[in-house]
């Protein structure tokens, strides 16, 4: 469209959005359960910082419950952040009232996943596309119609479709209508929340291509939310990977996919089935489930499942950093080989998850046999570590699984740097020149 973009626009490179230490907590349900749990908040998004640059597509990717949608909504002030700041074109949105934000919405549009429920069935397509222009009092009625019809053509529909109703269109076509509507106010930023997840792959490709074309033509910035790494690899310029309310890694697309540094990103990439039967890489799998965002793990939130959890007793954690219970349980020395540590870690998690049975083994010696055979065939640690293992085995022989879990976790997980400190590091990119942020202590010592 020939019209100049309204309002002051942002020059290249300059961020359109700057997010600093932003958190969004929801108060958990009140009532009986809450009173039992001490009514803590759901930490949906916790202290995240990042920029969105003009004209780019920044993808927020992660699995269900990771907080990606909440984060995006908090950026657009659909949910007000609990803490931190969000600047849009230099203006701090968190300082503004809803009324003050309303006129800015012209520049921040959005499209959602479900193309069926997001269009009002009683309105004609033309009215739907014109609605945001009307709301912001843009253009006269004739001009609105002209723009709406041109936008319909731009998204691959026809000007005549202006007079039709949404039910006459397929899912993919409805998503095109949504795009036309979002572009009608010539916005700076469009938040796209899983815009193609409900579509078949062949249609998804059509819609993604239209989105790319529109971005090229109008220079719009996309904040693209998706659970699908393949789609992200196709559309994104930069990618932020989220896990349980934290951004764990953020880098340019090529860097993130070709040189992933966070163990969670790696696990995510390894799990994706690749549409090529000759790729026979072993499927990496992640143990366990995402913990609850009420009372999430301290330090690195991925540590309860991380295949790389760092052995406690490394020099960089001081005893004074640990809470009392952990400090008491922590051993003075954790000398063991890497293989032995892997075995201890696997055993600790297996006890936590009760993923093996001890039917006929009731004497400590019998339990020890089962445990050795299952977890310590190649290497077992010695010294103090072994004594703790022995104590856990005695507890198991008494049927005290919870006690054994507590003992093992406070001894082997809680004193780790992964639990003691929240990680945040920037490393060199191997692909492209951008920053590569990675929230994992494996990168400590390489600049913080």
């Amino acid at each position, binding site marked *: 469209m020939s019209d100049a973009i309204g309002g002051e626009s942002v020059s290249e490179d300059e961020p359109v959005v700057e997010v600093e230490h932003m958190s969004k907590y929801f108060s958990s349900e009140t009532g009986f359960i809450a009173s039992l749990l001490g009514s803590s908040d759901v930490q949906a998004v916790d202290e995240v910082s990042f920029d969105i640059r003009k004209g780019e597509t920044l993808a927020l990717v992660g699995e269900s419950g990771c907080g990606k949608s909440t984060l995006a909504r908090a950026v657009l002030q659909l949910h007000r952040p609990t803490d931190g700041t969000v600047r849009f074109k230099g203006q701090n949105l968190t300082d503004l009232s809803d009324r003050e934000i309303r006129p800015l919405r012209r520049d921040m549009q959005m499209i959602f996943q479900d193309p069926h429920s997001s269009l009002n069935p009683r309105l004609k397509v033309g009215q739907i596309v014109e609605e945001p222009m009307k709301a912001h009092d843009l253009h006269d009625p004739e001009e609105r119609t002209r723009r709406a019809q041109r936008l319909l053509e731009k998204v691959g529909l026809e000007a005549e479709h202006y007079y039709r109703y949404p039910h006459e269109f397929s899912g993919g076509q409805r998503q095109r209508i949504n795009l036309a509507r979002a572009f009608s106010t010539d916005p700076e930023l469009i938040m796209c929340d899983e815009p193609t997840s409900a579509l078949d792959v*062949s249609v998804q490709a059509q819609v993604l291509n239209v989105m790319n074309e529109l971005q090229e033509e109008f220079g719009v910035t996309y904040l693209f939310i998706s659970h699908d*790494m*393949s789609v992200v690899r196709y559309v994104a310029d930069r990618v932020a990977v989220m896990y349980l309310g934290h951004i764990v890694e953020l880098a340019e697309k090529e860097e993130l996919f070709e040189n992933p540094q966070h163990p969670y990103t790696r696990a995510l990439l390894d799990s994706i089935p690749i549409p090529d039967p000759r790729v026979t890489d072993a499927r990496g799998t992640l143990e366990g489930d995402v913990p609850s965002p009420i009372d999430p793990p301290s330090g690195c939130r991925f540590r309860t499942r991380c295949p790389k959890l760092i052995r406690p007793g490394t020099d960089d954690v001081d005893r004074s950093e640990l809470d009392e219970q952990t400090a008491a349980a922590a051993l003075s020395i954790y000398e063991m080989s890497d293989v032995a540590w892997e075995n201890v870690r696997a055993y600790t998690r297996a006890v936590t998850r009760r993923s093996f049975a001890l039917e006929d083994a009731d004497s400590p010696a019998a339990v020890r046999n089962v445990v050795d055979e299952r977890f310590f065939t190649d290497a077992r640690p010695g010294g103090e570590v072994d004594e703790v293992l022995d104590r856990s085995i005695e507890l198991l022989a008494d049927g005290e699984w919870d006690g054994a879990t507590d003992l093992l976790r406070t001894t082997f997980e809680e004193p780790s740097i992964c639990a003691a400190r929240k990680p945040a590091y920037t490393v060199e990119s191997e692909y492209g020149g951008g920053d590569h942020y990675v929230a994992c202590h494996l990168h400590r010592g390489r600049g913080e």
Partner: protein
Amino acid sequence: MNQNTILSVDGLRTHFYTEQGVVRAVDDISFDVRQGEIVGIVGESGAGKSVATTSILRLIEEPGEIVAGEITYQDTTIVGFDERSDGTLVPKDEMLTNRQMRSQVRGNEIAIIFQDPMESLNPVYTVGNQLQEFIELNRDLSGSAAKKEGIDVLREVGIPEPEARFGDYPHEFSGGMRQRVLIAMALACRPNLIIADEPTTALDVTVEGQILNLVSDLQEEYGTSFIWVTHDMGVVAEICDRVNVMYLGKIVEQGPVDEIFYDTKHPYTKALLESVPRPDRTVDELNPIVGTMPSAIDPPRGCRFHTRCPDAREACREVDPQFVDVSETPDTEHRTACIKYDDVGYWDSVPLEHASEQDTSYIDEDQRPENRDLEQTEGEP
């Protein structure tokens, strides 16, 4: 038929009689499953994948009906018809009764896992309760032995703290955990064949990975066969031995997984592969399939894909493509239903022009009366 074949589907047609007309959801498909293999059925929505698999278990409900074809499981006839002298079809005498289906086939021989586990679990009973009852019913175990077996299978499918979770209700499990419970249930009776209908589609990718690993393990340990229904070419590549690609009620291509990906014959399969975004490499431009899936009520004449096929020619509107053997070697059994590979005049015929994404665009240029009826098949505005 291969000697290891345990299930064969031959000429199956399942139609739905709706007010709008007859939906030919599955229209003459044939495929088979051999012992210990994973057979994929892949396609987009509306392809008829789920109708095909529910037909195998005879779980088709009104207004749907299996109207023709033969389904044989080992030596029993699940579906079969005799033709009367007046041409009408009547069920064969040896076809299993509904009761026999329940008692002899479903559960203990062939189990099914659906996409939405909440549909298959009763919300008012605990998971353990349902699992135990299922085991007592299908295997000669009772009381505590059935419970123990139940806990064991829960552990086997990776449910943490299975002893404690045994007494939980379905809603207390996450989606991935519920899907595991269903897999546990399917496994508990040690079926020979498991039909998995998009069982991982609603799950997160790391959970999907866990379940795919589990399936590979089970297949190795018990030699269980699977029919895996999916829309995801990645899942197909990862786990299937042989694949059936469906489009609008038909199987358009079938063969070993490697040939489907590396020696792709059918234009739809090719188009599908080109429209999938890749996780393993950066693609500059995806190549979408134009248009949308036509309705199965009045599907396009001739080849059903001709309204969207980049290779379509005049002949494709007229000729109903038959399966052609396109195997490179005699034993691969790679077949496709596209007249490019048949001797029925494709190469002498004129290409159809799909000028734009509006799949009707070329019809205006062609005024020949015999082609007018094509317009009715285009449901899109």
